């Protein structure tokens, strides 16, 4: 086998050793189909799914707060982000099966109390941070700025799975962009075939 298609090196037509027959042409097609499926999740897709949103305003938090309305969608290739409206949590619906997914949420604050805590969670199918979290991170605060980033790579999910996001702080804080363009972020992206 010379090529990824399984085809031998072609020779100029007419030639009886490398016929331009259905088998060889379909080998070419199949390799392209496989590449599309592996990279994008299907032969009709032209890119993998990506959702990314950020928050340009500010909001107060003291305890648990689920990501709701008001986030600016940077990109949502599969229109998978649902915003029912506050106070109902927003969620991302996994658009197709057979893939790994990278999941991420981060948020900053300008100032924090000494000995405070800030945490963030990613939940599967139910907006319940105590019972349905599949990723979590926490930070002890020190009276300066505060930053937290929860990232879980390569999570095998199926079409229809819902992803929720939440934040929590031990004391009252204001979450907002800091130092220019460092926004609260959420992201879900196709990371390849399972």
């Amino acid at each position: 086998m010379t090529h990824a298609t399984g085809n031998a090196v072609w020779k100029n037509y007419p030639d009886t050793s490398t016929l331009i027959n259905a088998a060889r042409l379909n080998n070419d097609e199949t390799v392209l189909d496989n590449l599309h499926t592996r990279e994008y999740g299907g032969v009709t897709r032209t890119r993998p799914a990506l959702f990314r949103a950020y928050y340009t305003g500010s909001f107060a938090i003291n305890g648990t707060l689920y990501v709701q309305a008001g986030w600016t969608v940077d990109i949502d290739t599969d229109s998978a982000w649902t915003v029912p409206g506050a106070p109902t949590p927003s969620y991302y619906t996994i658009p197709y099966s057979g893939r790994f997914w990278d999941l991420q949420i981060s948020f900053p604050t300008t100032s924090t109390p000494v000995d405070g805590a800030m945490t963030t969670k990613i939940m599967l199918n139910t907006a319940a941070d105590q019972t349905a979290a599949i990723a979590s991170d926490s930070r002890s605060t020190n009276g300066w700025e505060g930053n937290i980033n929860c990232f879980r790579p390569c999570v095998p999910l199926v079409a229809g799975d819902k992803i929720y996001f939440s934040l929590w702080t031990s004391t009252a804080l204001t979450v907002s962009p800091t130092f220019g363009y460092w926004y609260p972020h959420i992201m879900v992206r196709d990371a390849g075939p399972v």
Partner: protein
Amino acid sequence: MTHATGNATWQDYPSTATVINASALENIENATDRLHVSELGSKTRTKRSVLRAYYNSSYVHTAGADLWQGGGWVNDYDSDAAFTVASPSFYTCPIGGRRWDITYKTNTGTLPINANFAIKIVINTQNLFTNSIASDNVRGTGGEAHLCAMLQSCKLNAGDKLWFGVYCSVQITVGWIFGYVYPEITVRDVGPA
């Protein structure tokens, strides 16, 4: 449509159902072109753009100083010669129309209790107060401390410049520890915008 090219399943020649004409062959070429552009950024590239640089030395960070990463960084891999090691060092985005994962890590072997250690990724204007796009900070415990500022699937334009800032409220030694735990910068193309 049967295939990603738009072509129907081929039949052996001679067949009028699947003629080997320019249109069908161009469909195959175009599907290959689209894959290259989507995966690599253009038809002529053969791999995605990636930078990985690390700092295999150490320096004493003055208390309360905002500093920029400067000389001494080693280019482990820089596919597009996009990282300029200078004073300060900076990254220049080589391709437009793409999304990027940007990660900036640094560390110290000892961060005094309650000290504040922070880093920033800064875009285009070298001002960490007004142009940061990612940040991390950590509270000192008296032991080692690690920072990781990350921004994932971030859209950049060709020519966008990234700088990398660091701050500490007290004097510490910043640099590689425990063998091979280096301060590190990675910028990698993760797909089409």
